[in-house]
């Protein structure tokens, strides 16, 4: 199915893909839908993008639902492991 579901969030950071330079990213788009490349019917997809630089200014990931949940836990654990004053 096409879920059409799309969750957008503002982000502030940088991203880099193969053969590309680092670039500033401002927008995160998160959706659970068909992947372009991953061998799964549906994946959790995240686009890190800077729309002001055009459609190609994007780093994309497609994760199985299980690995996306593991990533959420890993991100939370990494944040929790750092001194509070650094992550405030």
């Amino acid at each position: 199915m096409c879920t059409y579901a799309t969750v957008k969030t503002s982000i502030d950071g940088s991203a880099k893909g193969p053969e590309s330079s680092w670039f500033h990213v401002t927008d995160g788009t998160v959706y659970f839908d068909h992947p372009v490349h991953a061998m799964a019917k549906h994946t959790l997809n995240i686009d890190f993008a800077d729309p002001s630089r055009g459609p190609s200014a994007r780093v994309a990931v497609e994760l199985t639902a299980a690995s996306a949940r593991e990533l959420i836990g890993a991100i939370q654990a990494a944040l929790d492991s750092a001194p509070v004053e650094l992550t405030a």
Partner: protein
Amino acid sequence: MIELPTVSDSLSAETIRITGNNGDEIEAYIARPASEEARGGVVVIHHMPGYDRGTKEIVRHFAELGYDAICPNLYWREGPGAAPDDAAATARAQGGVPDERLVGDVGGSAQYLRSLPTSNDRVGVIGYCSGGRQSVLAACNLDLDAAVDCYGAFVTGTPPEGFPVQVTNLVDQLPKLRAPLLGLFGNEDSFPSPDQVDELDEILTREGKPHEFHRYDDAGHAFFSVDRPAYRVAAANDGWERISAFFKTHLGG
């Protein structure tokens, strides 16, 4: 010496610009048989992942079947010249393709096909995935001669509560359907579910709209997609046979 009939599968394909909704110039991919015989046309509506290699292969398949076939790049405005996946991501982030714009772009594509010297004036539309819904939408609002819906979600059915879809179903538009509809669905699909396909069947029957549905076991969503795990060869092969017969009946050729 036995003389065999001359059958040619020669075709040409190229990227062109056409006039879409609101007079906008948009990109399109067209494939045409080499012969000069009059024939029907087919507008191919790409799936949500975009105007990609697989979709262009489908366009060429229709030319091989004997039709002038065209696929408008529905994401041209958001991503002119961008890679198909990047353009799809950008269009998605901006809310997707509005229904009104889709109708205008398909209408422009059909008009282009009818302007070709080989046109017999008959044009059909086919769409996959989100394009299945858009195929029905186009056939409710444009003068087309045949429409094919390949597992389009939200033609009927109410999205589950809290489900953040950004589309509406087409139930209120179905009485306007003005072309025979071929529907191809996987029984393992959830959107559209078998119940939602039943509902569409019932509505079209009640409204007296000619339609023909085929439903496949051991197939879910996107069973025509040869480069995805969802591909089901038996369903896809039978589906292509159904499409060929349906277009031959309604578009000639």
